[in-house]
């Protein structure tokens, strides 16, 4: 019978015989030594502890709750000594790499004034260029909120797209760890923290003193808006009565200009899209995946549903516009080919372009490789443009 020591490996408790504990302690200590200069030291040790925990778990049963010394020795022999010949190399060269790693672990190197700056944070957790990521860090909110905001804006005649591109070019990219810490507004020292707390208190005091003035102003403001509301409602009433008197005649479907079969075809296409959307919602709810694309764990379900609906709106919007133009020929023309079919032609053209790209991607491997590299290329391009801008400012 031997003494048992309970240890904690990544949040789970394991009971080891005393001799086994000593061996494990010695192993972990000697594992930490070669990792001295390694910026990922803690992460590697966590991984190693997790692997050890997995091997322990495999040895335990309902009737066997202790890992004895012999088993510990066997597990440690299986793990092998920790070798890190990259430690010296990493500290010598590639300072940006190590700087990134320190930032990824959220340590040191902060702007001395503790001011929060707006940066683009890429590539940690960014989807396209880290714009929403940086905005989220600046305001302390989930970047997904900003992504939805941009998508919604994009539906308003593409302002979202324009705003996004402008932001990509203007907002600097947080490269060094100092900038990354500033993006999340870390207060550097205790002094900084105390100063901030005092400032917040005085802010509160100031508005407190103006309490009476604020109340009077609020009352006046409410009175004014109420009078506006009544005046507006009266005006609307009169208008609607006039309008009803003038409106006559039954509802008539306007004639279709251009080839007659186009409009019903578009409606059919829309119906297919609606069915696809409902199927996507169903598959998202039951299997957490749509057409084989798995929902990342960080995005909650309701956000996924909203994304599906938004995607449907985006894809169906041009089709709806076309269908509308079929019924109301005007500056945008009817729905057939010919002088007014530009809109129609461009949609079909877009469709074929998309289909062509997809087919190429599937069947031509070099194209696929090039396509995979495209985001990287774009990022480098954006960085060059930004660098060029900065240079122009500092001759």
């Amino acid at each position, binding site marked *: 019978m031997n003494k048992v020591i309970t240890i904690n490996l990544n*949040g789970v408790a394991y009971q080891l015989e005393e001799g086994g504990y000593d061996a494990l302690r010695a192993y972990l200590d000697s594992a930490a030594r070669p990792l001295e200069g390694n*910026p990922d030291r803690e992460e*590697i040790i966590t*991984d*190693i502890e997790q*692997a050890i925990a997995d091997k322990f778990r495999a040895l335990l049963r309902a009737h066997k709750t202790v890992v004895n010394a012999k088993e510990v020795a066997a597990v440690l022999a299986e793990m*092998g000594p920790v070798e890190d010949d*990259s430690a010296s190399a*990493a500290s010598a060269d590639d300072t940006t790499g190590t700087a990134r790693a320190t930032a990824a672990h959220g340590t040191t190197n902060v702007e001395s004034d503790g001011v929060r700056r707006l940066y683009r944070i890429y590539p940690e957790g960014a989807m396209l260029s880290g714009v929403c990521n940086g905005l989220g860090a600046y305001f302390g909110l989930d970047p997904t909120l900003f992504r939805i905001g941009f998508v919604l804006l994009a539906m308003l005649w593409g302002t979202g797209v324009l705003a996004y591109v402008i932001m990509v070019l203007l907002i600097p990219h947080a490269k060094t760890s100092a900038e990354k810490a500033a993006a999340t507004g870390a207060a550097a020292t205790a002094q900084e923290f105390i100063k901030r707390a005092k400032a917040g208190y005085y802010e509160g005091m100031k508005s407190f003193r103006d309490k009476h003035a604020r109340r009077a102003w609020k009352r006046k403001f409410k009175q004014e808006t109420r009078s506006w509301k009544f005046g507006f409602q009266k005006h609307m009433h009169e208008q609607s009565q006039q309008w009803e008197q003038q409106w006559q005649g039954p509802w008539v479907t306007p004639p279709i200009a251009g080839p007659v079969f186009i409009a019903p075809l578009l409606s059919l296409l829309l119906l297919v899209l609606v069915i696809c959307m409902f199927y996507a919602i169903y598959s998202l709810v039951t299997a957490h995946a749509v057409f084989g694309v798995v929902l990342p*764990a960080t995005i909650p379900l309701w956000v996924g549903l909203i994304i599906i609906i938004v995607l449907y709106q985006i894809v169906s919007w041009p089709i709806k516009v076309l269908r509308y133009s079929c019924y109301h020929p005007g500056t945008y023309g009817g729905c057939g080919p010919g002088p007014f079919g530009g809109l129609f032609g461009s949609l079909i053209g877009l469709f074929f372009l998309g289909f062509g790209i997809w087919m190429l991607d599937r069947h031509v491997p070099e194209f696929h490789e090039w396509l995979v590299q495209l985001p990287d290329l774009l990022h480098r391009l954006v960085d060059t443009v930004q660098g060029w801008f900065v240079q122009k400012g500092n001759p």
Partner: protein
Amino acid sequence: MSLDEKFTAIRKGLLEFLVLKIIAADQVYAADILKQLNATEFATQEGTLYPLLSKLRREELVNYEWQESESGPPRKYYELTAKGREALRETQDYWQKINTTVKNLGQK
């Protein structure tokens, strides 16, 4: 020295190349990489693999995401980045070159 011992240095040098190849074929857990390697002459241990994976991630050749699992804590699921694919291709070409040299050297 047995043949195994003579080739230890070569096996160590090739390890990074092989790990990149394994990750390129499919997304894998660290445990899968070990399982695949242990079936070959390049059997290796966690103590060697984890620091290596860490170095590859720092050089942005691989990336990982946390995969939840019902039985146990979340695990790292590794995949190759575009930069990693590029590096793998270069290493592959270099390996081919060496191979050809080794084959042709000494032949008349």
